[in-house]
């Protein structure tokens, strides 16, 4: 019987092609939009985590509270001890990387040693010298350095390519950094600019400099100190798991605070944050999820509506067939059920096609990306100028399942009209042919 119904679907395209197209288009759009938003969302999370917050962040509370001032005097001492403690008390999947955020005035001299240009820069110091450092891949330095090379000495500097343009800095120029040291004194040091970086985020490319962490520790008198410990998890771990991982570490903290490292100040008190706790990301992520769900619901609703109508048209188209089948002794419910099976088949086929089309688009976005030019970069969001999609099983399910449901539901509602047909008039109706 099912085979018989399938033959009908294949041979009579008016009963299958339009519903199939509706489901295909609806599912493709849902999957595409879902993947696109997922791509933007995880793109923001990904970039923010790499450049700024990690997935988890271990930081001194007094520092964090004044973070906008980059108060390096509230950095956390005991680098080695802290690292060991984090490794011991955090989930083994987390990789911890020490960083120092710093701020300084960058002075570019001319040939005569006079100031040619000058600007405040914010910078990150991180492990750049060790060729095995996970930070190299994290910042995609191989590709981000668009001129010059990676530092191989503590007093070498990478700067944003726009910053270099603005200050007319050339490769291998020596610049002077003037800042505040850990103990509140004046810090001043010369660095050699060995490379220009481009992250595709205007704010960073204009203001940012990178150096090895040992350089910063030396320049700012921060021996054995860091401002941040950033914890990174493999991509297989969803951001939804971060709070739980945060919790496990936080639970061990009071115990440590009973006997903190002797190098800590009396009011030093580290805290653990997830990326979602920072930069307003939790509301953003929640908004994204909501938009995605609403979007899926709207598409599912529209699909159901269209398919309901398609079902009604189909009912007119197959009026004679339905009448005949009732006369031959198929009950109304059997008819409705068999039509639902047909709709299910069409829904599955359409959903598969829609997943292929929408998924293909998202896959393209994911692998190739679309260069949105300055629009994105200038938006101030931590989002690179190349927008990428993200293809996931989730995205396909969120598109495909509503496609199948809409097909079955729309058809079911439409097919209920067979109940209005009374057997008593079948002979007369069928006479008309």
């Amino acid at each position, binding site marked *: *019987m099912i*085979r*018989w119904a399938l*033959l*009908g679907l294949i*041979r*009579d395209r008016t009963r299958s092609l339009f519903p199939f197209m509706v489901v295909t288009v609806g599912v493709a759009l849902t999957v595409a939009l879902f993947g696109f938003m997922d791509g933007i969302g995880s793109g923001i999370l990904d970039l923010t985590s790499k450049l700024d917050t990690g997935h988890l962040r271990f930081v001194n509370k007094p520092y964090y509270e004044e973070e906008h001032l980059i108060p390096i005097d509230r950095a956390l001492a005991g680098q080695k001890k802290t690292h060991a403690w984090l490794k011991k008390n955090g989930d083994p999947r987390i990789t911890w990387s020490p960083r120092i955020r710093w701020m300084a005035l960058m002075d570019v001299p001319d040939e005569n040693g006079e100031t040619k240009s000058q600007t405040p820069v914010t910078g990150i110091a991180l492990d750049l010298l060790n060729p095995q450092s996970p930070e190299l891949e994290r910042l995609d330095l191989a590709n981000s350095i668009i001129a010059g090379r990676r530092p191989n000495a503590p007093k070498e500097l990478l700067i944003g390519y726009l910053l270099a343009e603005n200050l007319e800095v050339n490769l291998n120029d020596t610049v002077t950094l003037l800042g505040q040291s850990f103990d509140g004194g004046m810090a001043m040091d010369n660095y050699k600019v060995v490379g220009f970086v481009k992250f595709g985020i205007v704010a960073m490319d204009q203001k940012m400099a990178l150096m090895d962490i040992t350089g910063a520790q030396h320049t700012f008198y921060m021996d054995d100190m860091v401002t941040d410990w950033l914890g990174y998890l493999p991509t297989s771990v969803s951001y939804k798991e971060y709070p739980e991982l945060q919790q496990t570490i936080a639970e061990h903290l009071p115990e440590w605070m009973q006997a903190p490292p002797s190098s800590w100040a009396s009011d030093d008190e580290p805290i653990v944050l997830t990326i979602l706790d920072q930069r307003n990301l939790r509301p953003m992520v929640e908004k994204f999820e909501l938009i995605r769900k609403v979007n899926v619901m709207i598409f599912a609703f529209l699909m159901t509506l269209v398919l309901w109508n398609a079902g009604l048209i189909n009912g007119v188209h197959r009026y*004679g*067939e339905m*009448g*005949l*089948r*009732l*006369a*031959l*002794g*198929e*009950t*109304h419910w059997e008819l409705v059920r068999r039509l639902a099976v047909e709709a299910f088949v069409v829904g599955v086929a359409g959903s598969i096609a829609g997943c292929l089309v929408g998924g293909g688009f998202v896959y393209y976005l994911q692998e190739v990306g679309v260069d949105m030019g300055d629009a994105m970069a200038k938006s101030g969001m931590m989002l690179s100028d190349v927008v990428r999609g993200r293809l996931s099983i989730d995205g396909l399910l969120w598109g495909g399942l509503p496609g199948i449901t809409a097909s079955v539901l729309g058809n079911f509602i439409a097919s209920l009209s067979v109940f209005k047909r*009374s*057997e*008593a008039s*079948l*002979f*007369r109706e*069928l*006479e*008309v*042919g």
Partner: protein
Amino acid sequence: MLKIDHVSKVYRVGNQDFTALHDVNLEVPAGAFMSFVGPSGSGKTTLLNLLGGLDKPTEGHVFFRDYCLDDLSREKLAEIRRQHIGFIFQSYNLLPVYSVYENILFPLLLNNEKESAVRDRVKEIIAQVGLEPETHKKPSELSGGQCQRVAIARALVKKPDLVLADEPTANLDKENSLMILDLMQELNREYKAAFIFSTHDEKVNRFVNREVRLEDGYVISDQAVESAPA
């Protein structure tokens, strides 16, 4: 096998009652071959409806096999039609997307038969109605007479007790009408199913064993026909 006992059918049109059948009594033995003859509007279709469990009488009872049809639910009536009654329509009502073979197979699928188990039966009846070369053709490729032969095969393939045909020859020319009647007669003998068909064509009476004449909802005559030539 089939009995109609003091049956009346009243249609309500607006707030007017219209009596389409007046106190009809009939008894049809198994294997009968009979016709309802009468002008258009005389109540033939209404009567076939009642016999086939498609409608219920306003008064009186319809008995088929061991059932009293006017007591039964819609579902039970559908089941009886599915299993025991074949239908033939004036305008054939073949399913256009299916081949001759598949159209004839359909009533068997409705009765939960497996195609593999009934394939030979379907092929046999196709041969009996003389459509072997057309087995895999679609209805649109067939003539009217051929379509009606498919419809006859479809009605008979489940070996029903009763075949109801409403004006089966009305859409056919004379030659084809005679061929169809001939075929029905032959299969009536072979399958031992009772055939009842309605017609307003006087010429068909030379085929039937019995003719029931209707006029304005009354049975005006019910007689055996002597000469039923082969």
